[in-house]
């Protein structure tokens, strides 16, 4: 086991390089040539199955469809209307009727003609579907957050590694220029030794709830498959509120709330800036409305609100300077000369991130937001959430991935999967 664990650090070495390097290496003649201006022939395109057709799933699906070497061949959703709309959109885009629609994602995974899957279900299912997809031999692009509990994302990272799968987490800010620039300032020492890494969470108003709602008449499976929506989560009677994003995203059994909603992005950028992609903070505590994690190198990860520059902002502070940026594309720094003449576009499109994933599907390199990196980032969020739930300081050992001597906290790292699903 020691060999397996110690090789993880080396395993990550290539990931940072691959995002920029994969496309620069000269391509020898291959049927699946990268990034052609012309559309690849139908038989040489990567066949994509999309699982989860809510707003984000549709958006990222279109980013995949914009790539010349991808063809969407199947869509899946537990909601009948979303399923039908997605299928219709794909047919209209390709001007054919070749895309199948499914309630049960396993039908897509069983198909040998499907190469890659995009997973954009609710948070509750991200790890479970990823595991099934890996076991079916697919490469995976899975939306964030990677998991609802820590042991799930560890299982995903281990499974991807064990089966040689390419996995890209949808933390696409790792592929967006102003965030990359900010991290580069940190990595090249322009900010000095890092002291604080501020990561915006989605807002303190998103209260984690534990409710069991009253039973309501369950829709027909074709309209909405309740059992499949629940997936590995605990069974409970149907209620129309559960599947609403505004509800489940604050429920402990289906989500990690405000901290994982944005912390999976902003905490991830902070981990990267601190060159902590193979580790994490060693203790967490609360100060006012902030959750603080401290790294061994002394830097603090601060999960908070109130930063500038739109959604998902971060601020990276060192003893010689700082940089702050967010989805608006604006960036500020001290000293100002760090910025030079740079201007950045706003927004957080997934396109570069999708391309980085596809390139790695061909080369088998580790993408820049691979499973191990994403697991470490979401782990920091999960432990911060445990600190929040228990209302006290939590010690964390990133090597053993446990809270030393703290059984109460350790029990919250894991949840049993509902049959027939398994970790």
């Amino acid at each position: 086991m020691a060999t397996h664990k110690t090789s993880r650090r080396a395993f990550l070495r290539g990931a940072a390089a691959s995002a920029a390097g994969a496309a620069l290496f000269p391509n020898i003649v291959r049927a699946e040539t990268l990034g052609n201006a012309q559309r690849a022939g139908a038989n040489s395109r990567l066949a994509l199955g999309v699982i989860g057709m809510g707003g984000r799933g549709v958006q990222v699906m279109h980013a995949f469809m914009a790539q010349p070497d991808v063809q969407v061949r199947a869509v899946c959703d537990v909601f009948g209307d979303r399923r039908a709309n997605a299928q219709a959109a794909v047919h209209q885009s390709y001007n054919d009727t070749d895309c199948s629609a499914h309630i049960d994602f396993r039908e897509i995974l069983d198909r040998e003609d499907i190469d890659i899957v995009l997973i954009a279900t609710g948070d509750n299912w991200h790890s479970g579907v990823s595991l099934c997809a890996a076991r079916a031999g697919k490469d995976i692009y899975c939306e964030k957050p990677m998991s609802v509990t820590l042991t799930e994302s560890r299982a995903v990272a281990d499974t991807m590694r064990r089966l040689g799968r390419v996995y890209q987490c949808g933390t696409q800010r790792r592929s967006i220029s102003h965030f990359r620039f900010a991290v580069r300032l940190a990595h090249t020492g322009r900010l000095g030794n890092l002291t604080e890494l501020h990561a915006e969470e989605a807002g303190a108003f998103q209260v984690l709830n534990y409710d069991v709602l009253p039973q309501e008449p369950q829709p027909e499976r074709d309209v909405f498959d309740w059992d499949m929506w629940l997936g590995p989560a605990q069974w409970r009677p149907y209620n129309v509120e559960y599947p609403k994003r505004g509800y489940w995203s604050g429920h402990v059994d289906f989500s990690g709330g405000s901290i994982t909603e944005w912390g999976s992005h902003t905490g991830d950028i902070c981990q990267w800036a601190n060159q902590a992609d193979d580790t994490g903070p060693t203790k967490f505590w609360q100060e006012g409305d902030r959750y603080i994690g401290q790294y061994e190198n002394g830097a603090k990860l601060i999960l908070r609100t109130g930063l500038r520059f739109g959604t998902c902002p971060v601020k990276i502070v060192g003893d010689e300077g700082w940089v702050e940026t967010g989805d608006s594309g604006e960036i500020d720094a001290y000293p100002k000369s760090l910025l030079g003449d740079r201007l950045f576009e706003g927004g957080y499109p997934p396109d570069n991130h999708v391309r980085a994933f596809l390139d790695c599907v061909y080369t088998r390199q580790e993408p820049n937001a691979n499973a191990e990196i994403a697991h470490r980032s979401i782990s920091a969020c999960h432990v911060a959430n445990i600190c929040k739930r228990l209302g006290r300081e939590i010690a964390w050992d990133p090597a053993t991935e446990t809270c030393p001597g703290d059984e109460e906290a350790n029990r919250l790292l894991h949840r049993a999967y509902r049959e027939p699903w398994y970790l």
Partner: protein
Amino acid sequence: MSCTRLSAIAFFCCAALFSAAAQAADSGPPEPELIATLETSTDWQARYEACYQLRRMGTAASVPALAKLLNDEHLSHMARYALEAMDAPEAGAALRDALGTVDAPRKAGIASSLGVRRDNEAVGALTALTQDADAAVAESAIAALGRIGGPEAIGALLSGAAAGAHRMAYGDALLDAGTNSPGKHWDLFKDLMSNTWPEPVRLGAFRALAVSAPDHSPKLIGEVLSGDDVRMRDFAAQLVAEVPGKGLTRKYAALLANQPSEGAITLLRGLADRGDAQARKAVLELAKTGAPEVQLAALQTLSSIGTAADVPMLTARIGGEAADQAEYARKSLAALRTDGVDEAIVKASKKSAPATRAALLEVLAERGSSLALPTALEALSAKDSVVRVAAFGTVSQLGTASEAEATIAALASEDEATREAASKALGRICAREQAAALPPVQTALASAEPATAAVLVRNLGRIGSAEALAALLPQVDSAQPDVAAAALQTLSEWPGQEARPHLLALAKTDGPARESALKGFVRLARAETDAPAKIAALQEAAALTKSKQDRWQVIAAWGTLPDPAALTALTADLSDAEVGNEAASALINIATELAKRDEESKQAVKAALETIATQAESQAVRDRAAKLQADLG
């Protein structure tokens, strides 16, 4: 009470509510009470919540009560929710005991829990389940054996796999067991690399073998690189990147010598990702002697393993005739991270031909080097235009007010490319440094030739301070036509509202400045955030319009102000042949927002829309008005 204070109070109330909710769910009745609920209650929710709490704090005492739920369709999982979390051996025993008595779906779940608990005592029972007719049960049991690992589990998995079913599940489980069990499992991994297993298993076994036997990995990787399996070859490159071990890099690099082009490029990619300079010598050799595409890959690899000693070679490639080599060399040079690279680039730039020197200046700036600006400043007076232009490019990116004087001096250069580059650089410095850049600009303006003065005047607008405006105003009346024109343009594009009175004064004249000044005045009025001031300004502007172009600008500005005054002004223009369509469009823009103001406004808007819908010249505008009317009801 201010909005900010109300928000703060609301925030703290919600935070308190959150804390209460969290603690309510992460604390609860004592264990004996929860056990009693499980044993006596028939209410699903009461038992669900009891299991929920026992997951947090249950002990062996609650195992018997939980065990009784293991065959319940809706509560078996909740029982496991609690049992899986407990270290107590009684929990494992209860799960094992239940395997023989529960229905098929529950067996899959219990098998999974035994795997999570790595329960070695369950190996026998799980082995039996791997033959279950229910695929979910079988695969859950197979996966559980993989997690448990150890010789007995591995033996059971190998026996089960021989039958041929669930091939991927067995492969995954064997990899899991082999990776996490004590001892070496090379023979197992070698077997799993054979073509009888699905590709993911083979890749995983390749990795497991390389990582568990790193000293043997070069031979293994060399064999794969020489083979026909493209995916395995590509995966070999990833393993080159990741397998840890001292001395391995040189051995991997030694494989380069015997590789055909495609294999060499694949291997180079792995060495680049590995990032170990121990491969440098072999890579440099290929950069010199390899096939053309291999040379490119070798140059790319140097970006992560190259050193300052490679700067001369890369510089030579940048200056060479092969454009693709120059591109790859340049990118690698920009990416080198070891000590002394910047200094080496500066040294090389002094000996290089002009085009190469220019490229090296750009590389220094791209590297964010602290030597970039000083080196560029030295190059401002270079003989060759291409060098000066590159130097001003760096000044443009990094220059401060301290560099303004030298940049201004270059505005008088005889070389047009230098003048343009200097102009661009000055513009960026002024935009970035603002007030700090004013003194050198003002000083130079006092004695500049007209062409230079015109450029300086434009930069007063980029500085944008009150003092810069004061310096600009006299230039509007300059005897030099180019300077006056530049000043007028700058004034009309002025960023701040302080220019408005001056523009208004000019707009009231009959001279050539009127039109530009009015345009600038309307632009600023449009940006005014105080509604009464905006209305007053637009009314003033409207009174000064002389052409339809003038009127269009004012109308467009009214179209950004959802106010009754705008509605009045635009309605008056609806029937005007010259500007009616534009007035209609502008009115439609503000209609929705204005209609929300009050009932009187809504009715006024509807009346205006009715006029537009029936009388506007453009069909598209009539249609928009009609739709909006319908929306307003």
